[in-house]
């Protein structure tokens, strides 16, 4: 390509005054080079994606349409029968509920803890690198090792936690008998492992926030907490979205911790803590040995993750923008609107609504203001209104 490139300017120079004599092979190649090279440069990712991403997805979809035994291989085409069979299994739905429950117990506290720790680490600490590296230590520990240690902690009869509870006179918790307790226990393993990792991602984003913003906030009289919510969180919003989505995907695919939580690794005698991925594993490699059904489970799980990921994405976007400038905007906006409403009411010689001193939309709704003022008061609370954004600009 380097050899071809000099021919190009020559062609362009002779272009306008005389017709091109003929297009040589090198020129043609040159033109091709311009058109195709960019795609070639970015192709490695897409080729890799096609091999390790797209192909398994499509192949899984094909497998899910067949009666496919682990050992026997491909069988008859059965259409959607595998999906129907899976959706009719009560165990599938139980595993979905378990997955959600464990996901909520793990991802929500995990993200909150991670962002809090990151905010603390973002301050001027002594030996900052030591602390920052320290939070990553749990991530380096192998999940199986974590599960073994936590298994000892959470054992029902001779577990460390129940022993400690016994010392302070609390009844032992049935970590393997009570459904919610088992979800909590598994979530702590997940949190132990992933909080530090997410903290570092948050920290990296926080370091990139321009310091001038904090200076300006300090001059404006904002305290630490206010700085955090009004400067830090809005500035790292993209990272929050990233972390929420990755932890959603991870949270919906919890496997190791469940496999190691008891000796059979299938969610206990009642399948009380069997996640959907473990269910998938059991369908494919357990007693059913049905790759077809397992592929159907994989696809259903994929759709579920996309759905939850989308919901989380929309939620995160709302919270991050709302948390950043929501209060400031809405208060000023509300005050102005209330002033207008008062003026309008005065001109109507009605009673002046003296309510809404705080100016929050909720308080405004509580007292009955004159009819025409209601619609403008409400929008700041809703995300669907374009008003707040325009107002700021």
């Amino acid at each position, binding site marked *: 390509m380097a050899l071809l490139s000099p021919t190009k300017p020559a062609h362009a120079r002779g272009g306008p005054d005389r017709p091109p004599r003929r297009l040589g092979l090198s020129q043609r190649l040159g033109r091709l080079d311009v058109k195709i090279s960019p795609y070639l440069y970015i192709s490695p990712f897409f080729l890799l994606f096609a091999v390790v991403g797209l192909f398994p997805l499509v192949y899984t979809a094909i497998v899910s349409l067949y009666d496919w035994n682990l050992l026997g291989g491909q069988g008859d085409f059965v259409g959607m029968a595998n999906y129907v069979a899976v959706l009719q299994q009560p165990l599938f739905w139980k595993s979905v509920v378990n997955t959600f429950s464990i996901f909520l117990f793990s991802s929500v506290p995990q993200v909150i803890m991670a962002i809090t720790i990151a905010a603390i680490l973002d301050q001027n600490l002594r030996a900052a690198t030591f602390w920052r590296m320290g939070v990553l230590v749990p991530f380096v520990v192998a999940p199986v090792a974590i599960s073994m240690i936590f*298994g000892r902690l959470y*054992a029902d009869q001779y577990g460390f936690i129940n022993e400690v509870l016994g010392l302070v006179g609390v009844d032992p918790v049935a970590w393997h008998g009570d459904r919610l307790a088992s979800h909590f226990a598994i979530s702590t393993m997940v949190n132990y492992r992933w909080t530090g990792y997410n903290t570092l991602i948050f920290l990296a984003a926080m370091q990139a926030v321009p310091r001038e913003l904090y200076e300006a906030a300090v001059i404006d009289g904002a305290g630490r907490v206010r700085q955090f919510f009004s400067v830090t969180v809005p500035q790292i919003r993209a990272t929050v979205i990233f972390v929420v989505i990755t932890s959603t995907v991870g949270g919906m695919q919890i496997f190791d911790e469940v496999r190691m939580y008891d000796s059979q690794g299938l969610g206990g*005698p009642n399948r009380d803590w069997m996640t959907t991925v473990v269910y998938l594993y059991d369908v494919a490699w357990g007693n059913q*040995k049905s790759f077809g059904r397992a592929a159907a489970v994989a696809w259903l799980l994929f759709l579920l993750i996309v759905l939850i990921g989308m919901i989380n994405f929309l939620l995160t976007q709302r919270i991050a923008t709302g948390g950043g400038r929501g209060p400031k905007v809405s208060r000023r906006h509300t005050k102005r609107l209330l002033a207008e409403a008062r003026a309008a009411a005065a001109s109507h010689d009605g009673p002046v609504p003296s309510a809404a001193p705080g100016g929050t939309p909720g308080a405004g709704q509580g007292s009955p203001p004159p009819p025409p003022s209601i619609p403008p008061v409400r929008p700041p609370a809703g995300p669907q209104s374009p008003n707040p954004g325009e107002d700021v600009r």
Partner: protein
Amino acid sequence: MLSSTRPRRSRRVAAATAGIASLALILGACSGDSEDPGTTGDGDGEAMDEEITLTVATFNDFGYTEELLAQYADEHPNVTIEHVTAAESGDARTNLTTKLAAGGEGLADIEAIEVDWLPELMQYPSLFADLPTIDGRWVDWKVEQATTPEGQLIGYGTDIGPEAICYRSDLLEAAGMPSEREEVAEWIGGEGATWESYFEAGKEYTEASGDAWFDSAQATFQGMVNQLDAAYEDPATGEPLDLATNTQVKDLYDQVLTAAVEDDLSAGLEQWGDDWSAGFQNDAFATMLCPSWMTGPIEERAGSIEGWDIADVFPGGGGNWGGSFLTVPASGANTEAATELADWLTSPEIQTQAFENSGTFPSQIEVQQSDEVLAYVNDFMSGAPAGEIFATRAQSIDGAPFKGANYFAIHAEVQNGINRVDLNGEDPEKSWETAVTDAQNVIQ
């Protein structure tokens, strides 16, 4: 200022979707891989005197040491043996089934299998070489287990698991019960021991000491159900029986749970779980069912505890729990040479050496009564003559139960049912109903 850095929402949503999709795909693709303890046996499939490499894949400890395998290499200079060991039988099973599913690529020339995987593998006998029969080497039922209805032998037997009762002599003594090996065997019922007499002895102990008699109802049930000729399926057709009307299993279920819950004989520990392991150190129970290979795990967990012993008795006649086979996957390049090696590895002389190395009780008839086996003494088990006891126990095993394609699926549900009661205190009848429903869902 902030909003100006914000792209339009719709594009963001699309980007997020793509992001989630690719992440899910990548993670999904990763999770499909399993650990891979096997290596490729890369023989050339040429004549027998050519240089070949044979791979033997086993799990846990088969007692196949380097020195033992070196003997074969000495006799066959053209053969190099590679021995691959998986830490757990579960890993080996996943490895085997995954590679069989992939057409046999990457399998070892000899793959060890556990008796529990036989029913699933027997459905696809063409995946394994048909091994030439060797008359009179093994106990009959061991050969029957690995023979398909069409008469193909898919594996050569290595060890078996004759069951006895392991007990804590110190705990029995403290409770004022018999504690000497012969006394305990007699107390539990001697030659005519039944499950009733075993549980009766348990009641005496539990009343005197207030402690549990056995470790887990599910483990005890395992021993009971292994004595049924055909627990969950019709041996003639292989069709699964309806669990709701399966009275022989229900009777055992009721019997073991009455003993476990009403008579309070069970320590309520899930076998192989963390509590179970800790129970050995906490004097949680006095006796347990004890296949020959169980002495290893007991020693591992009980460690410094002194007083473990073996009683030469087993309720309800003889019982076998576990045991393994060597198979030769048909896809291998050197199946003939591999068959020869499997033959050698399961020969009485070699299996005796393996027994001395790791305590796996041989399935070969002639060495079960050999001096080497009979002389074996287990120091940890208070110096019990383990070789002699298990040789006697092996005599009383009269056959292997029928286990078809659905055996383990149904059995797992019944085990879950027992655990729900034994571990979590659920009502036995309700738990049985659940097991019946769940079993219906897993039958193929």
